[in-house]
């Protein structure tokens, strides 16, 4: 099989998400969204075997199972929300959240678009983003890379960015349907690490509503044959990934 020809954008994104949890050790990987969930399970099944994963409710489970299906176990721990808060504040977690807006220094909005007192669109709320971003590593997943998501300034700061004076902020990467970005630019400005195969740098730049740091842009790596097998046969046999990031 010619792996390159067959690989979809969603599969490249799943591997780019998995890379966020490389060599993390014994921490809880908390993915939000289908492709981050595939990525977290892929990471544990390959290069980060010590990760802890939740069944989506209150159990920590072993094994590798399909997205959209119940976890078969084995159960290795009971982690109701209160315990998740405890381990999050203790630093034993790396979450990947989905921001409605994110800016150049990683401030992220999950709360409301427009004026907070009377928003044009009310969203979820702060959720755990303020605590997560000052207590443990955080990454972000953006299934549609658009200027209205990558904004010069977010309307409500839920997830704390690097320009807010909190030293413990540890933002790892932003994975989108177009690219991988991190905060390796001057003053922790957002840096374009790699464009996905088939994506031009110009395409990423025009989909971003602020100036990215562009210097030596790489190409996001392809899945290995083993990773592709795991994604296609074990973790996402029903191709839920294609609903989140359609090809072409």
């Amino acid at each position, binding site marked *: 099989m010619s792996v390159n020809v067959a690989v979809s954008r969603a599969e490249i994104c799943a591997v780019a998400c998995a890379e966020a949890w490389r060599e993390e050790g014994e921490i809880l990987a908390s993915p939000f969204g289908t492709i981050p969930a595939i990525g977290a399970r892929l990471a544990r099944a390959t290069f980060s075997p010590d990760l802890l994963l939740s069944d989506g409710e209150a159990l920590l489970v072993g094994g590798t199972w399909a997205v959209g299906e119940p976890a078969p176990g084995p159960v290795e721990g009971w982690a109701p929300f209160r315990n998740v808060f405890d381990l999050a504040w203790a630093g034993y977690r790396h979450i990947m959240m989905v921001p409605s807006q994110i800016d150049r220094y990683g401030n992220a909005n999950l709360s409301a678009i427009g004026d907070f007192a009377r928003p044009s669109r*009310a*969203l979820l709320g702060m959720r755990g983003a303020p605590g997560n971003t000052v207590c443990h590593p955080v990454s972000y997943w953006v299934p549609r890379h658009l200027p209205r998501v990558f904004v010069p300034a977010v309307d409500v*700061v839920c997830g704390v960015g690097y320009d807010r004076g909190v030293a413990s902020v540890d933002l790892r990467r932003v994975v989108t349907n177009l690219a991988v970005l991190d905060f390796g630019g001057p003053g922790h400005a957002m840096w374009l690490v790699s464009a996905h195969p088939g994506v031009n740098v110009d395409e990423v730049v025009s989909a971003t509503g602020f100036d990215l740091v562009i210097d030596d842009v790489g190409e996001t790596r392809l899945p290995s044959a083993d990773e592709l097998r795991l994604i296609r046969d074990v973790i996402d046999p029903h191709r839920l990934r294609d609903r989140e990031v359609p090809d072409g």
Partner: protein
Amino acid sequence: MADKRMTADEMVAELRSGMTIGIGGWGSRRKPMSLVRAILRSGINDLTIVSYGGPDVGLLCAAGKVKRLVYGFVSLDSIPLEPHFQAARQAGAIDAAEYDEGMLQWALYAASLRLPFLPTRAGLGSDVPRLNPELRTVRSPYDDGEELLAVPALPLDAALIHLNRADAAGNAQFLGPDLYFDDLFAAAAARAYVSCERIVPTADLADGGFASLRIQRWMTAGVIEATNGAHFTSCDPDYPRDEAFQRDYVAAAKDPVAWKEFEARYLTGSETDYQAAVRAR
């Protein structure tokens, strides 16, 4: 032991307009919906509602009962956004105190321990302090000298929670995967009311395992038997979320005419009428 059994309407008779009321559960999971529906039938309003919010918040907002809302999020879980909450926020109809989820836990925990505040890093650097200017920071008195957010205690006039089982004395039991923060809501409240799927003899509570007996009678003021009382939210293992009903609720909430029909069909009568209308779907 006192017999704390009562009806939902007797509970509502103990509530007053302007009260601060906490509601247990999480999102669209194990919400005391029959007690919320009892409030909808009442004349009380101007409430401050404290919740990890789901359709409890949505219904109370839609009925104009909410003056102030203290929350970490409002979501229906399988449907991310709550339409009535969105409409109320977008109309500027409620005073929104939006906290980090863990801050809300701390506020309830502080109240339950009768402390004025509990310190945390959660909230620092975010817009939570900007949007809630009453919040203060506190400096560690030890060598580290770290500045922390002092989350003020949030005492409740009343708490409403729904559990799987309870006895007549107000001991209650969760049989699902997560207690959520129901014990903190109950302990933070002057009076906590627990609805349950079934009232059982105290001796039967041991069947669920002692670790599930987390709501104890010192926390509770009233017990209301409410079979299917969390509907349409989940109440594992007694029943899952009624996803079809939740979809209908969301569709109706987005259209004023459809919402009038939904109200007429489900929310104008008694709890018995509601359950009959649900069975007749």
